[in-house]
């Protein structure tokens, strides 16, 4: 699957100007509320007509202002899962799911059985929407969209209306969609937790513009995007596999290119691939290897770049044997330690800072 998007449109106070490409998997449109994420999604779906640009799926144009192409919404074969999935109230979950199939234009590659199994809907099939929790409704809405045999699935903050346990439940199912059905997904979110868990490609949006896009781990480590990726929650994302599970201590050893990382409560088996976000604010720096400290993760590396800014703290990019980490430290420390690009440093990460929200399946 190859999705190419390049759209422009005046929208009230701001101008939408977004261009990015994706090679499948989960593409996250990330940005604050009002940054134009949903507008981009609606343009892909055909619900919003851009003034200029081109949208193509596998080379086939869905919209092309220059060529005068604008495929109608119902002919695009694009599934859409909205913030709050609306189901038809008077019919059962099974009938609601089959409504997806009824108007499908494709050959129906995904069966009702498969969708039921994949989204854990078996026990819900004969129930009515008003008996379902928000998370269950959303799973049915995803199932309905899948059964329409979409070439691409759009999700507009599908977890926004759910509480935290439901969120992580749905994220698990979206991970399964990504890994098992391999339906490409464009996912809109302002939550870095969600994006980090499921996205392969991230498009960073601000004030109607797509600032940058690329593979998640590369983009997350980019210094110049730090202001847009959440100073508090942001940080590098590394891919690793579970090298060891110490059940007695409840710790997992996650091996990655730059070494090993210990993290608690990792819900994955030895050998499985995971992705880990290490928040910049959870990373400390030392110029000599510290002794007798509680931090389990001491990663030797080289300081690659120093961020700019006049505030108390700045961002530092560290190269740990090819893997980029981000640290957020005070300017006072930078001065005191004489930190500068090229300087060998140790990146210190508290194992307990890597919580379950920071780890997902790769």
């Amino acid at each position: 699957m190859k999705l190419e998007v390049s759209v422009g449109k005046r929208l009230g106070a701001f101008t939408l100007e977004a261009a990015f490409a994706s090679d499948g998997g989960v593409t996250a449109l990330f940005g604050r509320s009002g940054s134009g994420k949903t507008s981009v999604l609606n343009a892909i779906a055909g619900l919003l007509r851009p003034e200029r640009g081109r949208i193509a799926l596998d080379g086939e144009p869905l919209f092309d202002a220059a060529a005068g192409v604008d495929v109608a919404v119902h002919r695009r074969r694009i599934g859409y899962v909205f913030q709050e999935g609306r189901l038809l109230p008077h019919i059962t979950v099974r009938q609601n799911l089959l409504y997806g199939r009824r108007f499908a234009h494709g050959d129906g590659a995904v069966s009702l059985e498969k969708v039921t199994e994949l989204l854990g809907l078996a026990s819900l099939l004969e129930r009515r929407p008003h008996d379902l929790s928000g998370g269950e409704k959303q799973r049915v809405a995803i199932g309905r969209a899948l059964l329409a045999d979409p070439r691409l699935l759009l999700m507009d903050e599908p977890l926004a209306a759910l509480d935290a346990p439901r969120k992580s439940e749905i994220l698990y199912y979206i991970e399964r969609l990504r890994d098992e059905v391999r339906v490409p997904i464009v996912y809109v979110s302002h939550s870095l937790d969600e994006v980090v868990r499921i996205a392969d490609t991230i498009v960073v949006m601000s004030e109607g513009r797509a600032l940058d896009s690329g593979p998640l781990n590369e983009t997350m480590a980019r210094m110049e995007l730090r202001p847009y990726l959440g100073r508090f929650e942001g940080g590098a994302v590394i891919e690793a596999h579970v090298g060891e599970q110490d059940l007695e201590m409840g710790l997992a050893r996650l091996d990655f290119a730059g070494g090993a990382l210990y993290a608690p409560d990792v819900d994955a088996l030895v050998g499985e691939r995971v992705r880990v976000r290490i928040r910049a604010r959870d990373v400390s720096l030392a110029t000599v290897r510290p002794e007798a400290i509680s931090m389990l993760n001491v990663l030797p590396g080289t300081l690659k770049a120093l961020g700019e800014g006049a505030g108390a703290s700045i961002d530092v990019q560290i190269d740990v044997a090819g893997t980029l980490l981000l640290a957020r430290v005070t300017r006072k420390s930078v001065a005191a330690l004489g930190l500068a690009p090229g300087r060998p440093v140790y990146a210190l990460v508290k194992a307990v800072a890597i919580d379950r929200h920071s780890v997902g399946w790769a």
Partner: protein
Amino acid sequence: MRRATLAYALALAALAALTALAFAVGRYPVSLGELATLLAAKLGAAHDTLAPNVESVVMQVRGPRVLAALLVGAALAAAGTAYQGMFRNPLVSPDILGVSTGAALGAVGAIFLSLGVFATQLFAFGGGLAAVGLVYWIGSRMRGHEPMLALVLTGVVIGTLLGSAIALLKYLADPYNQLPAITFWLLGSLSTTAPQDLAVAAPFALAGLAPMLLLRWRMNLLALPDDEARALGVDTRRLRSVVVAAATLMTAAAVAVSGIIGWVGLLIPHAARLVVGPDFGRLLPLSMLIGAAFLLAVDTLCRTIAPIEIPPGVLTALIGTPFFLWLFALSRRGW
């Protein structure tokens, strides 16, 4: 499902009983035995031993009128069901886009010009279609508004305009000949229905019904937000225009036969929905059955309870208002 089956059975039984009753009662009573004999004779199962005036009362006088009540009742209820589904609003009637007002203006215009009965019906039919066409044309050009809202508001505004045109014609009409005829038409009546009226109106009503039956699955999706229905692969704009056209055709055909009979298209779908729920495929047939039975009952009352005929539009309002308020208070759940 069993509830729906029971509702269909009850409605059918009521319809059959009311039909028999409608044939039996009136200024010239016909017994059920005579009706049965006549039916058997018509089916070729027995010899006709009845007095000839019994046959003429049943076949020529009451027959067209009963059929007209069934047709108009079912058509108005079907159109109301479609509109309520499309607008996601149980307070909507087939008149919302101006079909009745347009038909009324057409009929009043024809009466004003003394054009005769057939022209009055033709003008009513054409006026209804033209009014909705105008509303739809203007409403769909209101960009930047929610399309359904734009349509309803345009319908209300155009309806008011047509209403004042009717008022003007009434004011200008000859108060001794034309004005009573206009008033009579505006209150609706089935008393003058001729068999050929039905032969003309029925095909149009059926032509409007066919797309509704074929589109019943899609109709349900109109309960979802527009974006969601479109993303599921339904061309909602085209669906809406087909539904408007079908419902308008049915209503215009009915109104051309009967004049304006209010309340049926508002009340009946609402009542039917309380019984079988909003699934269009189940709702439409029940709504039509109840609509036919209701209007037949109303028309039978109109011609029997008083020495003079009462206009059915008056009676539907008298029954409809309290019944509707009661239903409205009863139903808590929204769409």
